[in-house]
């Protein structure tokens, strides 16, 4: 029972693509039958990662952002890659409230939200080459769903 599915998307680092990117991931993850809450978590995390690439990765230029999603059984992996400036000190960048762009009213909560809303977060970066953010989350409960359908069937039988 090895259900896998994969997709790859490349788009320009324009802010109007933030909503596009998170909607795409949510639509792709929908096949795992996630709860509304899980979908909201995924959308927020993706939005944070893509926004980071747009305003920090490509500070004053437009570049390409590559987004790869893999579904394996009931786990979603999202990989967001940019080829921008990179991060010098990753632990510092991941600290809550740390931001290098306070003039843009960035709250410095991006990585904290990604960590809070996904099960696993991994950041790789090389200065001058770019950054990869890899996030994983288990979505939906296939066993629970099976139980639920069985229960409903039984209920139907009782009603009949």
């Amino acid at each position, binding site marked *: 029972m090895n259900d896998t599915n994969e997709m790859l998307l490349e788009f320009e680092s324009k*802010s109007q693509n933030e*909503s596009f990117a998170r909607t795409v991931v949510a639509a792709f993850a929908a096949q795992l039958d996630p709860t509304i809450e899980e979908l909201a978590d995924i959308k927020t995390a993706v939005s944070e990662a893509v926004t980071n690439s747009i305003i920090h990765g490509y500070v004053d230029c437009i570049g390409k952002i590559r987004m790869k999603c893999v579904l394996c059984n009931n786990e979603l992996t999202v990989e967001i890659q940019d080829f921008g400036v990179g991060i010098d000190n990753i632990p510092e960048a991941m600290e809550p409230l740390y931001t290098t762009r306070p003039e843009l*009213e960035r709250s410095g909560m*991006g990585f904290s939200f990604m960590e809070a809303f996904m099960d696993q977060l991994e950041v790789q970066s090389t200065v001058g080459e770019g950054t990869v953010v890899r996030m994983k989350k288990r979505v939906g409960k296939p066993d629970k769903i099976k139980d639920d359908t069985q229960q409903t069937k039984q209920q139907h039988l009782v009603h009949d």
Partner: protein
Amino acid sequence: MRSHKCLFLSHRSALYDEGNVSQGKEGMKYMQDLKNQGRKNARAGEEGTTYEVLKRCLIIHLNGELDHHNAIGIREKADKLIERNHIKHIVFDFSGTNFMDSAGIGVIMGRYKKVIFIGGKIAVTNLNSTVDRIFRLSGLYKIIEKHDTVEAALNHLQ
């Protein structure tokens, strides 16, 4: 039961100044045109975010998704209104919003810094569970108030 009387106040007064106001049928037609124009303006804004000024309170009815992209426009428009109307308190109404990320925190923190010096307060209303969770996680409830409706927020602020 929300009063939209003050909605697009600035647009209306600007148009009235042009001396277009007439009576009777034409007047009615003019009002209708204004209404339509108002609607158009509302749609043209940041995904339909509308702004209402009541005394020294600014009510921002957020519509659509509050991310970095939409935050830029909302920030500019709100700051203009805050300065022009000597705004003290701000209410963010999330009834039309089902998505917010850390950019929303930035928008609210930025406005908070603007009004705190004159003793102003920030309130948020009509939150759904996802937006509420983001506020809780970020610890923003330490500095802002949460209310169920805009009316409740206004009663509390004034």
